[in-house]
């Protein structure tokens, strides 16, 4: 059983969701149900398993139900049918006090338009989660200061949100979510409102933090490049239905359908694909022993864009090593070119 289990979630918006639920279960799609009953299908039979410590990205265009989905994880929205559990605990069975305790202790959320409290300064915003928990001022400000410094905002404690740039505001949002030391970080299009350069900075920052903190992160985005960069695994939603779940390379190399294929067309393959999915695999015993003493050697998780430059420089066949320094594959120049061009 995975850490977060989402089982057969349906969410239907409208005055009589039960009636429309029957139709959805019988196989009608979003448009059909909308014209027949006037109800909007937010999520259609979505099941996901999210492991502890992974960065799980949910990708989809607007209206795909991705923001609805993430709100099921902390019950900002309740499903019409289905179940959600954390570590085997059914969160839909919680009453209000239990739910609030669960939200306080175990979850942190970051919002697209930041959701900062405009009447509180940076310090009080970051300390907000701890204040809700009832932590005394001194210890919550100590924790908040630590996170403010961590996200690079030391010296801005007394500023108010409207005095900060978008990127800085989102740093406050991130610090606020981390200050309660939650197990799970929910990020709803957290970087979508930022300029491209700032966005890229924030992505790097998040990856750096995650390398140390090993939180479980559920990240929502409409940007496939962002999904591929951040995600250990990616789920793609369309019209409330799950289209594909997989590692970034699986999505690129084996798109489940035309919809996913259309997304992946413009992706920078050099950045996503790694040596292990490009190389020609060596079967044990078939090792060639020709002058490989001075052939270039790379790790199996080297990105294709880095392989290109090595291949161009040397012109030789490259040996691919796994983590334990066993030679697992070979890449020649033709393979590099064909991997890029597909």
């Amino acid at each position, binding site marked *: 059983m995975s850490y977060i289990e989402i089982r057969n979630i349906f969410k239907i918006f409208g005055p009589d969701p039960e009636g429309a639920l029957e139709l959805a279960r019988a196989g009608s799609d979003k448009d059909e149900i909308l014209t027949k009953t006037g109800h909007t299908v937010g999520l259609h039979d979505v099941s996901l398993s999210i492991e502890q410590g992974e960065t799980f990205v949910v990708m989809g265009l607007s209206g795909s139900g991705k923001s609805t989905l993430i*709100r099921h994880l*902390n019950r*900002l929205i309740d499903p019409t049918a289905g179940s959600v559990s954390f570590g085997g605990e059914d969160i839909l069975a919680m009453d209000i006090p239990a*739910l*609030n*305790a*669960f*939200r*306080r*202790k175990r*979850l*942190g*959320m970051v*919002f*697209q*338009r*930041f*959701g*900062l*409290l*405009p*009447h509180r*300064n940076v310090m009080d915003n970051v300390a*907000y*989660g701890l204040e*809700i*928990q009832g932590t005394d001022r001194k210890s919550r400000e100590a924790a908040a200061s630590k996170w403010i410094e961590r996200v690079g905002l030391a010296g801005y404690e*007394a*500023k*108010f949100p409207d*005095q900060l740039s978008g990127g800085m505001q989102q740093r406050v949002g991130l610090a606020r979510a981390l200050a*309660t030391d939650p197990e799970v970080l*929910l990020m709803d299009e957290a970087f979508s409102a930022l300029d491209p350069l700032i966005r890229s900075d924030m992505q790097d920052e998040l990856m750096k933090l995650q390398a140390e903190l090993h939180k479980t992160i559920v990240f929502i985005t409409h940007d496939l490049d962002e999904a591929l960069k951040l995600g250990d695994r990616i789920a793609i939603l369309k019209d409330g239905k799950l289209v594909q779940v997989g590692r970034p390379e699986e999505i690129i190399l084996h798109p489940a359908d035309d919809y996913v294929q259309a997304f992946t067309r413009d992706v920078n393959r050099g950045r996503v694909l790694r040596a292990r999915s490009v190389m020609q695999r060596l079967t044990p015993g078939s090792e060639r022993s020709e002058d490989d003493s001075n052939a270039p050697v790379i790790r199996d998780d080297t990105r294709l864009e880095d392989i290109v430059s090595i291949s161009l420089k040397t012109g030789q066949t490259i040996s691919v090593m796994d983590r334990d320094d066993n030679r697992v594959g070979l890449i020649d120049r033709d393979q590099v070119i064909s991997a890029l061009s597909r």
Partner: protein
Amino acid sequence: MFPEQLNVPLGKWVNQFVDWLVINYGAAFEAFADSLLTVLVALEQVLRGAPWWVVLIAIAAITWHASKNWKLAVGLVIAMFAIGTLGLWDKAMQTLALMIVATSLSVIIGVPVGIAMAMSNRLRAIMLPVLDTMQTMPSFVYLIPALMLFGLGKVPAILATVIYAAPPVIRLTDLGIRLVDQEVLEASRSFGASRKQILFGVQLPLALPNIMAGINQTTMMSISMVVIASMIGARGLGEQVLMGIQRLDVGAGMEAGIAIVLLAVVFDRIGQAYGKRSQRSHAEDV
């Protein structure tokens, strides 16, 4: 002619209802009236008993506190001084006491009702026509039952003023809370804030500029009620206007009218300054 058979004896019913109220609950109304009167009389004594220059200093201090603008403070002190030079100081203090009590009562009743309306769409649907009625019904109509329940004097005047002046603060409290950014509310909920923590930590502080605007309007409307309130025995500037009408003394009416306007200006500027302050409570930190 409209057929007489279809007449509804609404007036008779209302009379019977008011009679029933007076007979059964007269004592309760009297007790309520007495406690309200105690507060009003005490306030009136303080304001009328205080030397005029103490009141002026108080006005200056409040204005400074609200606006940090000494020009405005001086201006409002001059306005109050002008009321004194018209020979209406004592009456203005009576009106002031009446207004303060009526406005406070409006806020005490209005803010919770506004909060409740913001929480419940059903209550809102019921309250909106009630508020419209409160504001459009000619005030004399509800002065009559107020008179029967409380007798002539200050208490029915205050109640009539509250009925007339409370709607803006109710409406703007409701509006202010409804206008709070949904994402901020979601953020607060996502951190596990209870309803009480959300109300006092997020919704009310963020609705404060609108609530302050509502209080300001409520104050202005209660000033405009003072003339009418004087017809049922409330003392003060309205009394002077009424006397002007009865004696066809244009000058006396004009003097009292100007005094009312000056008092309104003083209250409006102070109220607006507090409203602005609540909008940018951190402006000084920039």
